[in-house]
């Protein structure tokens, strides 16, 4: 186990910089998830830590040692790839044992380590098979096993679940989480899937176009997104965004020019903002009271457990998405009353996208 320290790490390809200075300290045993849309530079950060890409400037430290100039094999890391990168001509055993063989570790010791890892991962029965005889989930486990037998200080994961189908992805995610709980390795995990990020991470690093937008625990990322981008990226269906004008009393809000709300705690400044509200924070109201407002139902998506309602407000189509529990009797064309909790509103600066705080910090 080890600490990983990134100090203003940057990467340029030719003249274009793709990672604009990422700094973070990953503590021993922590599970850090780096998340962002494709092409945001998240994999590049991981590959710089692994030593598969040169670091243009800044430093990467593993266990307080600068590893910038070390070969991957000397960094005491293991990596799990998106396409598993198993050696197709080797058996499962040989795949898992390969790094030990290269390092010249005794056969007996190798066998013991591989068998231990196989037992943990439920692969004991398939050590003689070839990768192509395995299902996607099993290949994923072999890739994990190959990492485990090395007993590295740091585990790196590059979108390891994205080649699996939805059901298997859910299952492997749970397995990964249990494995981490059991082995307690320092782990850095790259994904574009916000659900993986939310469920696996001790802390999440959100990256957008090579910039770090937020680094915080999942609940904080979800409940207090630092920017418009984070707010929209984390959560599905995505957070609703509306324009809002806050009065000089910093408590009265006019949303989309027609809905009037009243906050309980004043905003830090008045003016025009982007207002965010998550779909599950909209509720069906029985009668016109409090903050309730009328919405036209454009589309109903029943999920069984919940129902997603796409609503229009006045002339605006697709203005809001609400997620209501169960299967309420609503169909397209209906007009319903929606209510919201003013403490669940998020305000963002229109230009910078930065979150606007309430006056009483840490309680908004």
């Amino acid at each position: 186990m080890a600490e990983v320290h990134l100090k203003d790490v940057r990467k340029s390809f030719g003249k274009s910089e793709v990672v604009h200075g990422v700094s973070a300290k990953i503590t021993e045993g922590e599970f850090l998830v780096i998340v962002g849309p494709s092409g945001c530079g998240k994999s590049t950060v991981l590959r710089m830590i692994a030593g598969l890409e040169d670091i243009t400037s800044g430093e990467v430290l593993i266990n307080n040692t600068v590893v910038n100039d070390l070969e991957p094999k000397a960094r005491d890391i293991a990596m799990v790839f998106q396409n598993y990168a198993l050696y197709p001509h080797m058996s499962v055993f040989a795949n898992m044992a390969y790094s030990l063989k290269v390092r010249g570790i005794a056969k007996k010791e190798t066998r013991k380590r591989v068998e231990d890892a196989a037992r943990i991962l439920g692969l004991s029965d398939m050590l003689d098979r070839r990768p192509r005889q395995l299902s996607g989930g099993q290949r994923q486990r072999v890739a994990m096993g190959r990492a485990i037998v090395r007993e590295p200080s740091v585990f790196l994961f590059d979108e390891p679940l994205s080649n699996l189908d939805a059901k298997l992805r859910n299952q492997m995610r749970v397995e990964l989480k249990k494995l981490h709980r059991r082995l307690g390795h320092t782990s850095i995990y790259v994904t574009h899937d916000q659900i993986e990020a939310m469920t696996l991470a001790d802390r999440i690093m959100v990256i957008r176009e090579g910039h770090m937008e937020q680094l915080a625990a999942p609940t904080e990322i979800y409940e207090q997104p630092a920017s418009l981008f984070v707010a929209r990226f984390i959560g599905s269906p995505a957070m609703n965004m509306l324009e809002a004008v806050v009065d000089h009393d910093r408590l009265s809000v006019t949303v989309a020019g027609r809905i009037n709300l009243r906050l309980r705690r004043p905003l830090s400044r008045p003016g025009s903002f982007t207002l965010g509200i998550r779909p599950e924070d909209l509720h069906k109201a029985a009668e016109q009271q409090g903050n309730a407002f009328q919405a036209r139902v454009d589309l109903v998506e029943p999920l069984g457990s919940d129902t997603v309602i796409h609503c229009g407000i006045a002339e605006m189509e697709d203005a809001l998405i609400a997620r209501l529990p169960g299967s309420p009797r609503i169909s397209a064309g209906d007009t319903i009353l929606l209510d919201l909790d003013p403490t669940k509103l998020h305000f963002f600066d229109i230009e910078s996208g930065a979150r606007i705080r309430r006056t009483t910090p840490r309680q908004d």
Partner: protein
Amino acid sequence: MMVEKRPFSTVIRHLVLLSGVVLVLFPIYVALVASSHPVENLLGRIPAWFGGQFIDNYKQILGSGMSAARSAPVGLMMVNSLIMALGIAVGKISISLISSYAIVYFRFPLRPVFFWLIFITLMLPVEVRILPTFQVIADLHMLNTYAGLILPLIASATATFLFRQFFMTIPDELLEAARIDGAGPLRFFWDVVLPLSRTNIAALFVILFIYGWNQYLWPLLVTTEENMYTVVMGIQRMVTATDWVPQWNMIMATAILGLLPPVIVVLVMQRLFVKGLIETEK
């Protein structure tokens, strides 16, 4: 697959294909028939059915050659051809494996330039290279040696190009995984690239063996002694020996013998070979 239901067009297609097959197999039949007759039967036209001298003809041609054309025994020719074909196949595969690995996996300045130079040599007619190469071989006193037969034919770019194409299909992640596992370039080549190329090497071996076996022009230049002649040269000399009526029975027997080793190689390597060529099944 397109499922056609009209029986008429099916009949036509079958006829077309069958005639194609006959065109291909007919020559072999003719050669077999001709090689089983005494030479007198072949002066006018080729007989339609086998004659009685099958074994005698083959025994004579293998053991002592066609005396009239003063040729060496075909058995010796076949050994020469075999050494040449094996040398060319093994040599070409080794050299092109190594050079294509260098081109694909190492980054050095002017790499594209080297790639294009190799590519251009693909295009050069053999005739242009052949005379200066002959000069070099002669200066090195390698005329009438196996090395002289084999070495100049090894230096060609086709196989390099094919291996390059195959190496390009090996996912980058495999190399990256190997680097993290601690394997250097040589180890990666030996432990991963080489085993993965197995079927490709087999397919190429078959093709290059046949290529080497069928060489004509270069052996003609570089060998002057009869005991270095190859089978293909032997056939040519028998046909074009101007001072004698061509002994078609012997010529055909030699042709059949010359056909055997490539067929054997194909049959032996078949499983691997087909795997290497046909990877997707529709």
